[in-house]
């Protein structure tokens, strides 16, 4: 069976619509009959990553690949990149601006939670070029 792929353009200028790709993914996974704990983990990982793309990187492309044994979420942006990944992974470390704070984001909890909720996470980032976050959730 071929992989099922969903792809979304995430608009970096619309803070109020951010998260719609994650909602759509959640609803697709429900229709496909995945167990609720898997759907929840995918939802949390993707939503945190999608919000990060909007508040830190002016949007990008979100891709969800449903394979036989796992679900992979790929979030690719052309934002500023992450200068120090170790620091960014620390709970409580954030560079979020006031606009993100107004929405309830910027506690510096997103990346550590994405790591915790996924089975594998990889951050590929180049300062000044962009960031690709890849997360895998095993389904078997």
């Amino acid at each position, binding site marked *: 069976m071929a992989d099922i792929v969903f792809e979304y353009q995430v608009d970096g200028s619309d803070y*109020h*619509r*951010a*998260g719609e790709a*994650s*909602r759509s993914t*959640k609803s697709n996974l429900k229709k496909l009959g995945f167990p*609720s704990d898997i759907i*929840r983990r995918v*939802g*949390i990982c993707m*939503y*945190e990553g999608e*919000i990060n793309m909007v508040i830190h990187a002016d949007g990008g492309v979100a891709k969800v690949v449903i394979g036989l044994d796992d679900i992979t979420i790929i979030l690719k942006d052309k934002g500023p990149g992450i200068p120090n990944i170790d620091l960014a992974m620390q709970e409580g470390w954030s560079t979020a601006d006031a606009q993100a704070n*107004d*929405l*309830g*984001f910027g*506690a*510096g*909890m*997103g990346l*550590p*939670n994405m790591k*915790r909720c996924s089975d594998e996470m990889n951050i590929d980032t180049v300062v000044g070029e962009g960031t690709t976050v890849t997360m895998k959730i095993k389904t078997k």
Partner: protein
Amino acid sequence: MKLKEIMELLDATLLCGEDKLDMEVEGAFASDFMSDILAYVSDQKLLLTGMINPQVIRTAEMVDMHFILFVRGKMPDANMLALAEDSDIAVLSTKKLMYTSCGLLYKNGVR
């Protein structure tokens, strides 16, 4: 406690989700930080928050919560309510403060 009992206890207004009034609410979580909700909610189904924007609804949906109670008299707009209905989440609003609302709920068995 049932949702309709919580409504009475906190003098809250139901803004959508009438079908959920008889549902049992066993656990609650309170925060204004979306990432705290995403990181710390386990199986609590009621979210208390004073933050008001569409991300509150999406955040609650991501952790499978069924009820959102806005405190301090915060009122969601039509767009937020439409989002909540679409996500099958009941929305209430109370004039009471966060601390008071949590205290009353805790005292009445919602832990």
